[in-house]
């Protein structure tokens, strides 16, 4: 008998089977119009300046400073801010450090700070891996911002995009918590939340939840097949 784990003839994921994936080469900073053209599932290659940090204290401080009406040490308005961690090798002459590599981190742990940062800075691009919650998605729709999914474990490939370190602030923090601006070329990612309020993560979570009753039903059937006669209690 055929196994029925989920609805038949269904696309494997977001319905993208057989659909050509759009690829965009993007030069930063992006205009509102350019951001709003991007759709969930699109592949992008970005060139320009990006700012990165995976520090919770960093996020907290950024938002607190903005709420207090203070300027951040760099102008992030309309910019790209990603949850990427990087090792900075300090220069012997006290000049700008060198970024040896970079790789994404889980974004959901910054859920509490991202809506405020997105709104106050008018960020055009955020990203990392694993997505952001519904409140962040709403703020992204409002201001015109997309979320990019970078490959976790993609360190060797993502690092090839690093051109140079533009600036490094809050250097009292450990390397990956600093507020670092990098010049990148052809940094590859997937648009996972777009500026129209579509979130791959929300869609996939909802779809998995919808499929769960049928999955549990099939598990039950498989259990019965594996053990046709129930064991008597001893």
């Amino acid at each position: 008998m055929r196994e029925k784990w989920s609805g038949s003839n269904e696309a494997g994921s977001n319905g993208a089977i057989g659909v050509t994936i759009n690829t965009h080469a993007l030069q930063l900073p992006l205009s509102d119009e350019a951001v709003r053209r991007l759709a969930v599932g699109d592949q992008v290659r970005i060139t320009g300046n990006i700012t990165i940090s995976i520090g919770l204290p960093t996020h907290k401080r950024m938002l607190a400073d903005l709420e207090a009406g203070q300027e951040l040490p760099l102008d992030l308005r309309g910019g790209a801010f990603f949850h990427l961690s990087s090792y900075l090798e300090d220069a012997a002459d006290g000049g700008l450090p060198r970024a040896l590599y970079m790789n994404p981190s889980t974004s959901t742990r910054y859920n509490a700070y991202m809506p405020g940062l997105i709104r106050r800075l008018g960020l055009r691009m955020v990203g990392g891996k694993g997505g952001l919650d519904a409140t962040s998605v709403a703020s992204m729709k409002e201001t015109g911002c997309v979320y990019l999914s970078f490959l976790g474990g993609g360190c060797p490939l993502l690092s090839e995009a690093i051109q140079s370190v533009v600036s490094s602030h809050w250097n009292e923090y450990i390397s990956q918590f600093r507020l670092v601006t990098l010049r990148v070329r052809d940094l590859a990612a997937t648009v996972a939340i777009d500026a129209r309020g579509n979130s791959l993560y929300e869609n996939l979570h909802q779809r998995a939840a919808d499929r769960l009753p049928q999955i549990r039903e099939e598990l039950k059937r498989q259990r019965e097949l594996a053990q046709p006669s129930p064991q008597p209690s001893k």
Partner: protein
Amino acid sequence: MIPQSLIRSVTATLYERSLKKIPDDTRAALQQAQGSERDETGRRTISIMLDSAAVAAQRDQLVCTDVGIPVYSVKIGTRVQFEGAVRQAIVDGFADLVRNIQPPILKMITHPLTHERSFTGKDMPIVTFDVIDDADYVEIICAPKAMGSGRWEELKTFVFPSLETIEDYVLEVVMRAGSQPCPPIVVGVGIGGSFDYAARLAKQQVLRPVGERNAEPILAAMEERLLKAINAMGFGPMGTGGDSTAMAVHIDYAASHGFIPVAVALNCWINRRMGARISNAGEVEWFE
């Protein structure tokens, strides 16, 4: 006689190798997933994963920047003799690694109360010890644990749970992790024993060769149907959709009381683990 210096150098090497090379069985499982994946973005993502792993191995680079915390599982043959301290050798080996590895690694060891980060900490590296009766070797496996998958692992204690209750719980944990633990993942499940033992069993299941069929038919059937169930959820590679959410589900149990803990451990797609067997004569045999 196994000298302290050998344990020290082997444990350092194990950590470095686990960061720079994904196991061969994991690469094969990813290649297989690429063949069966129906989602175009999913297929492309797996292809980039394989590229990333290949480039890391070629150029001696880290696959992921989150190098995790050092976790070692040590099994000591009862016929082995040591010259010097074992636990200290592992502590020193990790310190050597931090000092020497290229490229240098980021600070991940975190004080749980102050959140201060460094390269050392209380009880670091995490080491569990077991014995192997009558063996004349030591087996060491290094499986660094990072946040991507580590934060989603769970344990819950049930009372006389049915198979359905246990399987529902595994699905619940995987569902909560969803797109976030860098799928396709390896799921390790430990059932029974005691609170601490169930967690250990789950961790040991993650270390099993990917896709190795369980010798016990009841567990083999459970592994097979849970793998299909998880892959029907649709989270896919990197959680952006597809059929490949898990590479393997490995389960084991220990006899228990009527209270039955169920632990679920997860490993991300790079599935870091490296092992070595050191004979009493000081010969080292590496394995994955």
